[in-house]
Each structure stands twice: as C-alpha cells, then as structure tokens.
C-alpha cells in the first residue's frame, strides 16, 4: 500500500477531523456560545454604562476567549482515544507529532477561528472603540492557536483520566497566562491609540515557539497516556 507523504497525511487528518466536527455541529457551537454568553454576563452583573464596559472590555474579551478555548480543549482527543483511533495513529508510519498537530489545527479551525470571527460583535457590545477591533481580531487570530496547542498538550496528558476537567484547567491556565497578558495588552494599547505592534510581535513569537515545540510534547504525552 502506498504510504501518503507528510503533507498529504496532514491534509487528510485535518479533512477527517473537520468532517467529523461538521456532523456534530451542536458540540462545536458550545465554546462559541460560551464565549458570547460570558461576555453578556458582565454588563448584567456590573452595570451597562458604556464608560465602565469600555474600561473592562479588553479584559473581558480576553478572559472569555481563554476560558472558551479551555472548555474546548477538553474534547480535543477524548473521542479518538475512546474509540481506538488514537492507537492506530500512534502505530501508523506517520509521525504522531505531525498527526496531533493536524488534529489541533482542525480543532482550531472549528473552535478558535469562530471566536476570532465573532469577536467584533462581542467587542461592539462591550463598547470597545472601533479602532481597537482590528488589532483585537489579529491578536486573537495569533493567540487562539497558541491556546489550542497548550490545550492539546495538557489534554494529551490527562486524556486517560476519569476526572480530567478541573485538573485540565489547573494545568492550562498558568501556562496560558503570557498569552492573556500580551493579548489584552495589545487591545488595551490600541484602545488608547498607542502602538500595539510590540504585543502582536510577542504573540507571533509565542505562536512560533508553541508550533515548533508543542507537537513533540503532545506526542510524548499521548504515548504516555496510551500505554
């Protein structure tokens, strides 16, 4: 049998995961709904004055995005491990790191990208100034894949455990803090009309670091969880 090349295997894996995800659209929408609802809670819990909301908007948007991606990473590998697909992937001639990176990429396309796309609406609802919206979207587009990769590493570590949920957040949140800091800072700087490119560059650097190292950590973690 012809063994597909690396690029082809990556594309096949992404395609498979996307198809599977599209057949369970309800599950897919959960993190997105969570993101929108959490941001709705703040005006209700505080008070809906535009000045107050504008002041807390960067923090609210970023914390909500972080929590939504935390929620999403729980289900990243669970199903494949349960039905044995992951064992097959681990045994396949393709490097496990690449296949897990493909799975994470598909996962980001289905859960991270929608967050980026709805963020302008959420930002508008929180009276974030117009000029900060493109920067926020760009920063979210860089930050959500980092969060997916961090989530992937920790999900791979905890996938075999019965009570993974609370533990997963304890593992992800400290590591994800720099992403939150840089992202919220980018929005904040753009709001006050300052140059936010520094924070964006730092997020891009973190993304490169995460993309180059975390697949190997994910693969090592998955092998530990599988045996």
């Amino acid at each position, binding site marked *: 049998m012809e063994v597909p090349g690396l690029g082809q295997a990556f594309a096949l894996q992404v395609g498979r995961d996307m198809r599977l995800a599209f057949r369970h659209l309800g599950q897919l929408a959960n993190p997105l709904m969570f993101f929108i609802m959490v941001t709705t809670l703040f005006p209700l819990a505080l008070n809906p004055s535009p000045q107050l909301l504008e002041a807390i908007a960067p923090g609210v948007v970023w914390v909500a995005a972080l929590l939504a991606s935390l929620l999403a990473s729980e289900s990243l590998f669970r199903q494949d491990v349960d039905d044995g697909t992951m064992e097959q992937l681990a045994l396949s001639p393709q490097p496990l790191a690449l296949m897990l990176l493909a799975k994470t990429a598909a996962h980001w396309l289905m859960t991270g990208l929608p967050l980026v796309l709805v963020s302008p609406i959420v930002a508008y609802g929180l009276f974030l100034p117009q000029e900060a919206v493109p920067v926020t979207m760009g920063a979210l587009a860089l930050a959500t894949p980092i969060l997916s990769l961090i989530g992937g590493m920790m999900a791979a570590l905890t996938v075999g455990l019965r009570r993974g949920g609370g533990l997963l957040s304890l593992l992800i949140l400290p590591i994800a803090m720099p992403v939150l800091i840089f992202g919220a800072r980018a929005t904040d700087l753009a709001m006050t009309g300052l140059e936010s490119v520094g924070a964006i560059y730092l997020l891009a650097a973190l993304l490169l670091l995460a993309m180059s190292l975390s697949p190997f950590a994910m693969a090592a973690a998955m092998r*530990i969880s599988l045996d």
Partner: protein
Amino acid sequence: MLTPWFGWAAAILITAGTLGGLYLAPPDYQQGEGFRIIYVHVPSASMSMFVYVNMALAAAAGLIWRIKLAHAVAAAAAPIGASFTFLALATGSIWAKPMWGTWWVWDARLTSELVLLFLYFGYMALRAAIDDENRADRASALLAIIGLINIPIIKYSVEWWNTLHQPATISKMGKPAMDGDMLTWLLLNIFGFMCFFIAVLLIRARAEVIRRARDQKWLKQALGVA
C-alpha cells in the same frame, strides 16, 4: 547517611544567619527594623525557583534515562518547593503590609511567584490524579519540563505587564544596594535554606523509595520482616 551532615549544617547556618540578621545587622535607613523579614523572605523566594529547576531536571533525567530514583526525587521535591513558594508569598505579604500599606500588590515578582505556586499545584495534582505509578511519573515529568520552558516566558511577560501597568510599584520596590553586614547574614541564611532543602529532600526521597518498594522482597529482607 548524608542527611545528618546537611541537617546539622542547615541548623547551624539558619541559626547563625537568622540571629545575625535579627540582632547584629544594622537597621535599614528607609525601612528601619521592618526589613529584617528579608532574612526569611529572600532565601525562600530563591529556593522556590531553585527547587522547581531541580525537580524538573530530576524529572527529565527520569524520563530520558528511565531512572526510577530520579522520579522519586522529583516527587519528593514538589511539596518542599511548594512550601517554599508559599512561605515566600506569605512573608512577602507580611512585609508588604507595613511597607506598602497593603497585604497584596500586583507586583511583578509577587505575581510570578504566585504563578509558580500554581505550577507546583498543577504538578502535584496531575501526579495525584494518575493511579498507575509509572505513568504518573512520566506524565508529571513531562509537565515539569513544559513548566520549566515556560517559567522564563511567564516571568518576563509578567514583568512587561507590570512595568506598563503600574510603574509606581517599581520605584517603591527599588531597594538600596545592600550593606555588607546585611548581606553576609542573608547569604548564610540562603545557604542554610539550601542545606535544609537537601536534608529534607533526602529524607522524603528515602521515604518515597521505601513506599514504592513496599512489596519488594529486598526491602522486607533489609528491614528484617520477611
């Protein structure tokens, strides 16, 4: 066998450093006598990071060369490191109350110390959540290594966040260069804390090894219960 050596060294050094710091060192010209908590705060803060690095290195050695003893050492080190981190946070906030007028300030160093405490908790929680000893060792070792790579990133991101956020704290934090008399006692205490760590680590690691080998024949023979 080495335990008493380090234990006694720790007892002597900490006694000397603490007494010297409390009675012999001159009072600070800005903070008066209040600064003396530094003799507990700084050694525990420096140990909190030192222990994490050691724990991660031991865990990495265990993961790479499959040394069970290294895993036992890492497992034994985690609670000690978490205790040092907690002590650093507690003494820091006790120090902050008279100096800054509040128990807690979102200062860069305090915040990264807090994140370090979360990293310790994550490590211990993961270890506790996995029943199989062998898997718990390897999974938590991987987590310790991921944490080790992230510590500098967290530290610098927090510093960057803080300098943009509230620069006033930094100038309040700006300590005058230390007087030689103060520094000697501080160094004594730092070395004392380190000896204390090694002594406690040896005791805990031995207990951990014995716990893991509780069903082994050699242990029962050594203890004469077989």
